[in-house]
């Protein structure tokens, strides 16, 4: 099970890719994360995460079209694999389990039960 551990940031990236559905590529993933999560990540950091995820087999990529706005360089589109979806579910389940085991009184009243 080691090596299939999903880091926090990697989880965000995976989720974002799923959100973006067919439109997930470098720039779009970066901008989506920047806007929605208020983090200011660099393309380099994103690349590290993407390459780790690819190594673990959670995402796969394919080359897209080039365009003049990109100086003639092609895009690379990312999609989450089944293995990746599984990992996401696992992570979510783990969270919920832990949440449910917290004694009610410790939780902040504004969030309810």
């Amino acid at each position, binding site marked *: 099970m080691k090596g299939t551990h999903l880091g926090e940031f990697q989880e965000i990236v995976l989720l974002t890719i799923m959100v973006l559905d067919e439109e997930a590529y*470098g720039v779009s993933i970066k901008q989506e994360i920047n806007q929605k999560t208020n983090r200011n990540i660099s393309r380099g950091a994103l*690349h*590290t995460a993407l390459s780790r995820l690819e190594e673990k087999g959670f995402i796969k990529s394919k080359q897209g079209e080039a365009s003049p706005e990109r100086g003639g360089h092609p895009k690379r589109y990312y999609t989450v694999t089944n293995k990746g979806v599984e990992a996401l579910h696992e992570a979510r389940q783990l969270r919920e389990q832990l949440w449910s085991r917290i004694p009610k009184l410790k939780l902040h009243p504004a969030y309810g039960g």
Partner: protein
Amino acid sequence: MADKPQRIPGFSNRLFKWFCKESIYGELQGDLEEEFYQNVEQYGPVKARNIYRNEVFKMIRPSVVRRFKNQTTRQNSIPMYINFFKVAFRSLSKNRLFTFINITGLAIGMSVALLIVNLVYDVVQFDQFHEHKDRLYRITSTPMQADYRSNEGATTPMPLAEKMMDEVPGIETVSRIRRWFTGRLKLADNSLFAEGIYADANFFDLFTFELEQGNPSSALTNPFSIILTRSLAEKLSPDVDLMGKLISIPDRGEFMVTGIMADPPSHSHFKFEMIGSFSSAEALEQQERIAMVSDDWNDFSHGYVYYLVEEGQNLDYLQSWLDIQGTRLYEAQEHFYAKFATQKVSQIVPGKNLNNQLGTEMPALPIIVLGSVALLILLSACFNYTNLSIARALRRSKEIGIRKVVGSSKGQIFSQFTIETIILTLVSVGFSILIFLVIKPLFISSIPRIDEVMQPENPPMLIATFLVFAMFIGFFAGIFPALFFSKIKPLLALRSQSSVKLFSQVNLRKVLIVVQFSISIFFLITMNVVLKQYRFTMAFDMGFREENLVNLELQNNDQDRLMTELEKIPEVNGLSASSMILGTGYNNRLMVKNPVTNDSIGTNFISASPMFIKLHEIPVVAGDIYVKRESNEKLSSVMVNEAFVKFHGYESSEAILGEQFFVSGSLATITGVIKDINYQYIEEAIHPLVLLESPENYRFINLSIQGADLITTVNKIEEAWAAVDKENDLALSFLDEQLNETSNFLIIFTRVFGFLGFIAASIACLGLLGMAVFNAETRIKEIGIRKAVGATVSHLIMILSKSFIKLIVLAGILGGALAYLLLQKLVLPEIHHHVNVGLIEVLSALFILFSLALLAVGSQTWKAASQNPVDALRYE
């Protein structure tokens, strides 16, 4: 918003392209650019560019940056290097002869260079031990008499010291040194002769000499105080502490020992065994025991003036002050003034050639010459080394090719051969140091007077300098072969195998051999010619008698008294007095005025008593010798030489007899003409000369000696001297010995050139031998085939040696021509009586070198040619 398209930051772009992995570059670069253009829209071009640069910077991470080559190599360093070492050793020991030649050549060259480095090191060390060396100077003076050509002297009139101290600001101290503090020291029953100086009380403020016992600020204050050096104290009285004891010096007085000091170091420009306080000299002058010169502005032989400049001062105005003093102080004297100048103490050795040096002198020129020659030899040795190494490389091209094909990088090949070179160099360095240790004592003993400058010891600092120097040389000699090795193209090397002939390629090697041999021939021919000149000089007839003549320095004594004493000696059968010793050096001049034309000419003169001419058997070609003049008579008669006659336009020597000239202002008649004798060095042409009797110019007494027992005669002369002069020691020389000594430098020249020629020739021959060995081995196949087809051994030898012989002949012509031109046209004509570069000198040098070269080449080619062809061909 600007309409023209914005550009991404070029530098960051290029940088990123350089370090980014190729496989992901496209994607990342595209993303960066896309965002850039969006940012330009959103934030403006400046901010967009900054964001871009930032992004590139943040791209520096392991997942993005490409793998550079280094990372793979580092993994197998250690075993790889071990292999290199093994291979290096194996390759070196397989070709022992070759390796030996290589090492020896470089070692010899380096040892010569080391010798010169040593010399330079020792010379530069002089006077560096003084704490105040940056502010320590002395005054030099040049007495100028009308148009008398004088030399600058290290001595200075002593009263200048006080005047300087009083009138020139910015000077911390001035100190006087007076030389010739000598005598027999007597203590209890011990008596020793010692030499030293008189020095001012502030001596130790200027010079950093170690005073072991005694107080430096007061040791030289009182009159009749003396400081002894440690070795003198030991010699005088090994067990008793001499501090406070009284030492008596005959004719000087009783001196109290106020200090014992360490011996002056060998690299001090002046040395002494004892120091007497200057106040003693002043007291002795009062007692009239020594010459009264400490207040004499006209004394340019006893004293030295040293001074210390205040910190941070520069004394430009000192020179102008000195210039003024030089003329003003001597205004009263006609036609005379002095030129004073300053000299930094650290520039005394090596430095200008001055008269009356207090100690050692060493002009800079010979050192530069020797240095350049040594450099030449070293370069020659290094080139040899490079040459032979490259030759070795060609043989191993197969090995290199295989290594490269298997995956060796250029860097690895380079390292491999560098290691080989380093091993060879280390061995050469060690070898060269051994050779150096052997030749150094030989060098010191064979060059007269070099021991004043060069020390036989090898201090650690020197050794350290050597090692650095040698490593440096080794590195440079080795780097070219190593570079060459690493550049060899693998496939080419594998294919060409052993048929790599060297002479059709690389003209550099041919040039090298020719240059080396030419240089060697040049040296050998020069040595021969110098030797010839030396023998010629020795045998040269100066025109006057040289044997059994002794010259005494008058040293300011009354020559009549002295001559009276000397006449009593039976072995002395003739006496005269003169102003100079015939055949040595330049001499004085006086003004001669032609009454007809009214031209005044500075003319050489010799002042001599009438006996002088008979004593030296100088031929008189016309007229008579002048008659001895009484002391109250004015000068009325002189003699001249044939050159004088010719110079003033008389048709014959008889014609000038009776003519009158103004000689130094007095009207004098020419009573006789002498033959042109070589009264100066034989290198000089014979100039017009006036002979006259002016006792005030006498400096020498000339004696003619007879009888076999020289020692007794000299003793008697000493006694006669002592009867007249108790202060100074007898200064006596034999004329023939002295004349021989003036050619001393020719001996030095011969020895040095001979030595260098030998070295250069050895290196050249070694180089040639190496080439011959290589040549023979590379052409083994060819030889084998030729033999098999029917060539004779002699035919083969000719074929193999042909190219070498051509080169050597060329070198012979070049070296010979160079030597001839340089010597015959440039150097020899400078010497008035000179030899010519003869056939013998050139041919003998050529013969020696040719034989050596033929031996080298012939031995190898013969060996190769006599081999069984089957063995050679079987190799393939």
